[in-house]
């Protein structure tokens, strides 16, 4: 765990607060040096400050991802400097760049190989929607056609600051995640398997299926006058 990490954020967690004491009072206690916390808060504080990304670069955005891990931007301040080469050790998949149709099965396979709890960031316009290459015949128009994306970082490429901001947002999301109930991460819900994402096959003209129908559907529009 990163020693420089900030103390837990006093924002109220969505779970029921500790009875008899308000968030404001807890924050006040914290200022006085008394840490009153819950297992959930402590657990989420820990894992949100040690998010290990997968060392996985696709295109231009990967260079900015490397830059974010270098001295000037120093992603280590957020506990995420440990880029893991193996998906088995990673918590976070940063889809950094254009996902081509030829690459899409491998990206999904990497995601399937990552253990829960895991998070996915779509970094850059290409990973979000295909970006400038959207009209290309070999470009997947957004990784959310196959993967559950937690966070989108726009930009072409996003600056390292934007990636850091995205990471902070992800940390806030992790901290707000309850450990019980239906919104808990899949590994804490007995019987709830996160499920494997559909790995597309190479077809004669396109990927088969071109998108995971359970995860993504083309927008339904109605033409009016």
């Amino acid at each position: 765990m990163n020693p420089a990490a900030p103390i837990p954020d006093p924002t109220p967690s969505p779970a029921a607060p500790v009875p008899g004491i308000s968030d404001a009072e807890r924050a006040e206690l914290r200022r006085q040096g008394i840490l009153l916390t819950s297992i959930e808060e402590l657990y989420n504080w820990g894992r949100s400050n040690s998010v290990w990304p997968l060392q996985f670069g696709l295109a231009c955005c990967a260079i900015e991802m490397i830059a974010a891990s270098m001295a000037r931007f120093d992603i280590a301040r957020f506990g995420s400097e440990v880029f893991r080469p193996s998906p088995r050790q990673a918590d976070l998949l940063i889809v950094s760049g254009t996902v081509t149709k030829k690459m899409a099965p491998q990206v999904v396979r990497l995601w399937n190989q990552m253990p829960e709890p895991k998070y996915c960031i779509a970094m850059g316009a290409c990973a979000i929607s295909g970006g400038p290459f959207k009209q290309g015949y070999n470009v997947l128009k957004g990784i959310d056609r196959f993967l559950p994306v937690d966070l989108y970082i726009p930009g072409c490429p996003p600056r390292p600051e934007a990636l850091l901001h995205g990471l902070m947002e992800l940390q806030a999301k992790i901290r707000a995640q309850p450990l019980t109930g239906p919104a808990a991460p899949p590994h804490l819900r007995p019987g709830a398997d996160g499920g494997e994402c559909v790995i597309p096959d190479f077809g004669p003209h396109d990927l088969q299926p071109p998108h995971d129908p359970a995860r993504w559907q083309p927008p339904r529009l109605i033409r009016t006058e």
Partner: protein
Amino acid sequence: MAAAPADPNGVTAMETIEQLHARIAARFPGVGATVVLNPGPAAQHSLLIPAAGARAIAEFLRDDPELQLDTCSNVTGIDWPDREVTETVRRTVTEPPPADTPAGTVPGTRVVEEKVRRAMPGHLEVVYHLYSVAQGHGPVILRLRTEDRGERVTLPSLTPVWRACEFQEREVYDLFGVVFSGHPDLRRLLMWDEFRDHPMRKDYVEPDDYEWEPTPHDRVLTRAQRHYPAPPAGSGDSATR
């Protein structure tokens, strides 16, 4: 290597394309290379060589002591689909005299411009840019054409002459569908092996995974209207909203 004077084409002292053509014609009688003039300001003219003699001419260009075109910089395909050209033909017609003219007058003639449509069969073209590293000159541009765009798309590979062609010819095979005979490893380069189409051809139809765009226009608008048909009755045409 002395600093060569900068020429607008990047060509240092080298024989002109006509001289080169004459030498090739003398060396390979009956092969029939032709000069393709480039009308643009770049004036990089090229040699169209027939498939039958391509390998021999390429080896000659590489080994000739004056030219020493020892490297092939760029290989690419161009797709020229079948097209209809409309030509204006002038011809003289005899004008039928008006009905009320008295008999015996000489029928007049006039020049009529007619538009004639002619089908031009398409072909695939492969272009090689050759340079000499040893002498620092170039480019000499070779063009090879297939007979059509359907079945007869085989051309000789120049990979045995310049290895630089190896991946680039694979790419032309992948994206344009030109089959190179004599290539050591002719597989798709960029697309996956199961892929059937040749996407850089002009008539390639990409898979229809249209997604809504906020401001459809031109080609995108046409596709948008196909995906989101207008309400059946009593409604004017409009963009998707």
